[in-house]
C-alpha cells in the first residue's frame, strides 16, 4: 500500500496538517524532511526553488506541497498533496466552529466572543509588524501600507482589490524605471 504514490503523499502530509499551528511556516521543516530526506521526492535545491515559487504565487504558503505532489504523480498527485495538507486542519476548524455556534445566544458565548475579539485584533497588528520584516520592506512599503490603510479607513467603499493591484503596478513600474 505504501508503494502507492497517492497513499504515500497523503500519509506524509495529512499528519502535518494537524500540527500546523500558527500557519504553514511552523511545519515547513517537517514538509522538507518528509519530501527530501524520507521519501526522496525532491532534492534540497529543488525544495528551495519550490519554496521560492510558493512565495511568489498566490495562496497559502503550504501550497508548496502541491508542487511536491506534482513532482511525484502529476495532476492527481498535486491534488492529493494539496488536500492532504489542507483538509485535516479544515475539518478540525469546522468541528470547533460548529460546536461553538451551537451555544450561540448563551451569555457565556457573548462573553467569550467579546474576549476573543481584542486578541484577534492584536494578532493582526502583530502580523503587520512581522510581515514587514519577512517581506524585506523598505520605506516605500511603509508609505504604501500607511496610504492604503488611511484611504480604506476614510473611504470604506473603495474596492481594496484595486488598491492591491495599483500598489503592485506602482512597484513593478518603479522597478522597471530605476535600473539597479
Amino acid at each position, binding site marked *: 500500500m505504501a508503494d502507492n504514490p497517492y497513499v504515500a503523499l497523503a500519509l506524509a502530509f495529512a499528519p502535518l496538517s494537524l500540527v500546523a499551528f500558527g500557519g504553514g511556516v511552523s511545519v515547513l521543516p517537517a514538509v522538507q524532511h518528509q519530501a527530501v530526506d524520507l521519501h526522496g521526492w525532491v532534492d534540497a535545491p529543488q525544495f528551495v526553488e519550490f519554496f521560492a515559487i510558493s512565495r511568489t504565487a498566490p495562496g497559502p504558503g503550504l501550497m508548496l506541497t502541491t508542487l511536491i505532489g506534482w513532482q511525484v504523480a502529476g495532476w492527481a498527485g498535486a491534488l492529493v498533496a494539496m488536500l492532504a495538507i489542507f483538509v485535516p486542519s479544515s475539518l478540525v476548524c469546522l468541528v470547533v466552529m460548529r460546536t461553538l455556534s451551537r451555544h450561540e445566544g448563551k451569555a457565556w458565548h457573548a462573553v467569550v466572543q467579546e474576549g476573543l475579539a*481584542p486578541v484577534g485584533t492584536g494578532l493582526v497588528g502583530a502580523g503587520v509588524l512581522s510581515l514587514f520584516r519577512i517581506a524585506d520592506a523598505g520605506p516605500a512599503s511603509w508609505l504604501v501600507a500607511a496610504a492604503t490603510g488611511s484611504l480604506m479607513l476614510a473611504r470604506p467603499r473603495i474596492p481594496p482589490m484595486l488598491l492591491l493591484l495599483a500598489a503592485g503596478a506602482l512597484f513593478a513600474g518603479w522597478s522597471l524605471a530605476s535600473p539597479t
Partner: protein
Amino acid sequence: MQSLEEHPPRTDVPRAEVPHPEVSLAAIAALHLRIGCLSFGGGMTGLIYHEVVTKRGWLREAEFLSGLTICQILPGGNVVNLAIYVGQRLRGLPGAAVAFAALLGGPFFIIIGFMLVYERLAGLPFVAAGLNGVTAAAMGLMLMMTVRGAQLSRHASSLAVIAATMIAVGVLHFPLIAVVCVAVPVSIALAARRRARHG
C-alpha cells in the same frame, strides 16, 4: 437554485439586530475565488475583513474578529480556516465546503503554472517588485483592520489586550500559541468583569 447576485447589506434595521443575511453559495464561491487568487505573500485577513464585514455586512465586526482569533489558534493556514469559518457561519457545511474549494482552486492551478514558467519569471525583477507592492497594500488593509478593531473595543482594558498581544507577538517574538494561551483567558475574564459591572 441559488440566485447569482450578491445580496447588499440590509440598512433598514440596525446592524446588531440583523441575523446573517441569506447569502448564496455562488456568492461565497465567487468571493473566495477572488481572495484565493489575490492572496500573495500572506496578510489577506484585511482584505477578507473588508469584503465580508465592511462591504457586504455578512458578519458583524466582533463576530469576525473573535472567529479570526480561533482560526489563528487552530492548526492550518489562517486564510483557509477563515474561509471555513465564514462559509460555515453563512451557510453551514455546504458553505464551508464551497469556500474551501473556491479559495484553494485558483492557487492550485496558478502555482503549477508558475512552476512551469519559473525559470523565465524568476529573472524578471519587476515581477518580484510588483508582488512586494501587493504585499505592502495588503499590510495597509491589516493596519486598517487593527484600527477598526481598536475603535470597536471602546474599553481601556480591551485596548490594553490589543496592545499587549501585538507587542508580545510582533515585537518581542514570543511564540504565538503561548501568547494566545495567556491573552485569551485574561481577555475573556476582563470581558466577563465588564459585563458583570455594567449589566
